Structure formats: C-alpha cells, structure tokens
C-alpha cells in the first residue's frame, strides 16, 4: 500500500480548466486502456478471478410472477437484465441503471427494490413480481393500480410507468398513502420525465382507497 501521502496535482484555487488538461486526460485514459484496469504505481492489483480459477458465473433458481425459472448467468448480471434479456420480460424498464430513477422497480420477496442494483446471482429461491405479474389473467384484466393510472391519466410516454406502478404497489402495501404529501415523499424514488407527478399521486391515492 501507499507509504507516502498522495500529492495533489491541483493546487487550491486552481482554475477548473486546468483540471481537465489534455495531459491528465491522456494519462487517465492510458491507465484505463492498458490491461483494462487503472492502477496507481503503488497499488498492487488484486488477482483476477480468471487467474485464480474461481468461477465468474453461477446458476440461480427463482420464482418470477409465480413461475419457477432457472438460469446460468454471468455473476455481473443484474436482475433487470435477467428479466429483460433472458426471460423476455421487457415490461421492467432500464432508465439510469444506477438506482437513481426507479424505472426498474420490481418486488423481491414482497419488497419494492431497484432491479438494476440487484445482482441476480443473489436471488436463489427469491420471489420476484414484475409488471407482467400483476394481472396474469390476460390483457382484459388490470390490477386496480394499473386501472387507476389509466383513469387518472398518470402517464405520457409511459416509460417510467411500470416502475411507478410497482413502486406504487409497494407504497400502498407499506401504508404510506395517508395524504398526497405522504404519497409524494414515498414515491420520490421514481422519476417521471414527462412530469406526470400530480396524476401519479392521484392514481396511487385512488388505488389505495380500493385495494
């Protein structure tokens, strides 16, 4: 490990422009490119899993919308990618892929979570509910919250809607629907770029009163 304190390349009060000099950029880019890992000269890289022979993939069996599923996956696979790319359940949406927008919200063992930050390999035996599992009877049947989104005109482009609805189900189950203000606060993990928040709150309020 480092025995010397790190030097600061940029003095206090330096102009922002000096931070992103061509030299800094090239140095950083080179470190990233060579060997694929940015390594400071005094940091010993950890052995890669390939070098140690440890497997970088695994098998997971879980229940999705009531149906048992098994897949062999790269350990890096998120639940979101497993659902969309392997199981063909594209109702769950990828927005930021960083836990910041809520578009990927699903229920895991009854709790609303961000599927993008959930490593699928961890979900052995878990029960996952996605937007496709809310009204499994067919296209004519809707969950009360889905119906409420239509009646309250709670979307425009619709991209965030599956996440909004799954989050709304969690919000209702948790009992955080006693006022519009409470719904707004407990739905804040779901961003809507069309700005349908007023009607989303109304839809959650409507469904909370009927479920």
């Amino acid at each position: 490990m480092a025995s010397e304190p790190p030097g600061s390349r940029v003095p206090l009060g330096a102009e922002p422009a000096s931070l992103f000099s061509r030299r800094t950029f090239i140095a950083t880019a080179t470190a990233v490119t060579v060997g694929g890992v940015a390594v400071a000269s005094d940091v010993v890289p950890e052995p890669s899993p390939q070098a140690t022979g440890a497997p970088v993939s695994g098998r997971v069996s879980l229940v999705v919308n009531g149906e048992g599923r098994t897949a062999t996956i790269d350990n890096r696979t998120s639940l979101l990618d497993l659902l969309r790319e392997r199981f063909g359940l594209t109702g769950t949406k990828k927005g930021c892929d960083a836990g910041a927008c809520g578009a990927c919200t699903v229920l895991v063992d009854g709790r609303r979570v961000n599927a993008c930050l959930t490593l699928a390999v961890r979900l052995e035996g878990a029960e996952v509910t996605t937007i496709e599992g809310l009204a499994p009877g067919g296209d004519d049947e809707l969950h009360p919250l889905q119906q409420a989104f239509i009646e309250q005109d709670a979307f425009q482009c619709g991209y965030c809607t599956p996440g909004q609805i799954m989050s709304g189900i969690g919000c209702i189950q948790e009992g955080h629907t006693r006022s519009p203000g409470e719904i707004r606060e407990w739905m804040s993990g779901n961003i809507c770029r069309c700005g349908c928040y007023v009607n989303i709150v109304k839809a959650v309020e409507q469904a909370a009163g009927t479920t």
Partner: protein
Amino acid sequence: MHPFSYTKVSDLAGALAAGRRGGRYLAGGTMLVDLMRESVERPSVLVDISALPLGEITATAGGGLRIGALVRMAEAAAHPSVRAAFPVISQALESSASAQLRNMATIGGNIMQRTRCPYFRDVTAACNKREPGAGCAALGGFNRAHAILGASEHCAATHPSDVAVAFAALEANVHLLGPDGERSVALADFLLPPGGTPQREQAARPGELITAVEIPAHPRPLRSGYLKVRDRQSYEFALTSAAVALHLRDGVIHQAKVAAGGVGTVPWKLPAVERLLIGERPSQALWAEAAERAADGARPLEHNRFKIELLKRTVERQLRVVGDLAGGTA
C-alpha cells in the same frame, strides 16, 4: 463491470475466512454494485453476507439500542424501539435515498458507504480517494456540494450518510468482528477524515466485518430530531443537515448532542454548540447564539461558501424544533 467470483456465506466464521482471503463483503449492494458498474470499484471476489445473523435490533441495559449491521434502512426506520427512543435515527433514515433503496441498503453498509463526490465516481477525473496521488479535481473544480469542514489539500468530499450524522450526535459505537476477534470503535473514530490518506475512509482492518451499531443509553426524557436541507425536497443528498438530541430537567438543558451533515468530510459533531446549550434554559436567543458556532473552523471552497450561513440556520431551526418538543421555549 469487471468479472468477479461470488460466494454466499452462512455463518460468521465462513465470512471471516472469505474476508481473510481478500473477499469483499456484500450486504445490500446499493453502493458497491453501482460503483462496480462505473469501474470505480473492482473487487475480484464478492462475499454475500446477507444470510448472516446480524439482522436484529435489541435493547441494551439502561436504554440503549443495538442495531444489527444487516438491518435494512427501512426496517430500522420503522422499528418501534427506534421510533420511540431515537426519532432522530428514524427521521435521518427516512430522509435518505428512496423507499426502494432503503428496502435494500443496510445499516452496516450505510456506515461503509463511499462518498458521492462526482469526481470520485468519474474515472476520467483526478481523485485521490480513488487513485492515491492522482490529485483532486474537486478542489479547483465545481465544489458547491463539497465539505467546508475537515477537508485536506488532498480531498474535500463529504460523507454522504444521514443516519451516520444521527449516530454521531448520539455518540454511537461500531462493533466489529475480525481475524483478531471483536472490538468496538466510536463512530467518531471509525469514519476517517481524508488527511493524507483520503483513500482510507473507515478504520476497518482487512477482513473485518461490522456486526452492529450501538447507541448508548442517554438520560431520559430525550427529545431528538433530524433536519435535512437539499436542492430538492426528497431523494437527494444533504447540502446541510442537523441531528439534535436534548435532555431537559426542570426547564434546564442538561444534555445536548448536536451533529451536522453535508458539510464535513465525516459526520461533524458540534461540541462548541453543545457547550453553549448545557446549563441554559431554552429560548430563541439561546438557539441563535449556539447555532452561531455551528460552522466554527469552516474553510469554504470556491462554490460552497453559502454552506456556512445555511449550516447555522439549519442548526438553529432544528434546535428550535427539538427544543420546543423538549419542554417549550419561553
């Protein structure tokens, strides 16, 4: 994201063995998976500790609380004992992140979380925390959200946690289990200011595991609360925050515990504010006088000078809110 092997451990001995071999502990994953995707973190072995028996909240002798490291943020916030004894903890937790993230993230992971400094997360920017010796893009860059307290010439990133501010105010201890056995460290000593080693953010030793955070007993009745000021009303990190806990007897403040968030490289205890309160009777003038000391020692950067006044006002407001609960202001 770099490839990694994955193992799930079922007991503490198995966890420590895997940790000793260099495995990286994985709890809620909301921070680590995110940073791995950005290539900021590149662990080669993940050790899933979610099945370990660290998910309990228990009362300790005298009225303290022991919160297991794997208690999820949502569970801790909603727990009746937490809500009754230390509302400041529940309020701090519920003002953090989103409902989804709070259903995933754990108390231990919250203490271990890394900074949200955008330069730390951007692998093309210079960051001494990510790459010791590389320099700090924040010091001469856009530093509106950065620390005014505790920064060094190498780093000015804030500690992002809200609940750690409540824990700091309440003088919590972090319980650790490692190859050399158990130990307990004051949170104030566990979270490290950057100094000359900004890459080292916690005092955990290699292979050590957080088992619990313990809140010591405080004299009762204790009134407490958390105020968070941010650019949007929800789902945002603090620009400033204040955790306040007051114990009054016969109309006099006998104990005052105050800490600030969003302003320090670690949760920032405010002993000068506390000292001014103790032995005094609540009044609007007292809150203002004490809060005037909230930013003692502050060294603002180019874009965050506003935090000095904002911090004073945040502390004053929360002293007033909690002080009124604690026995009324004359």
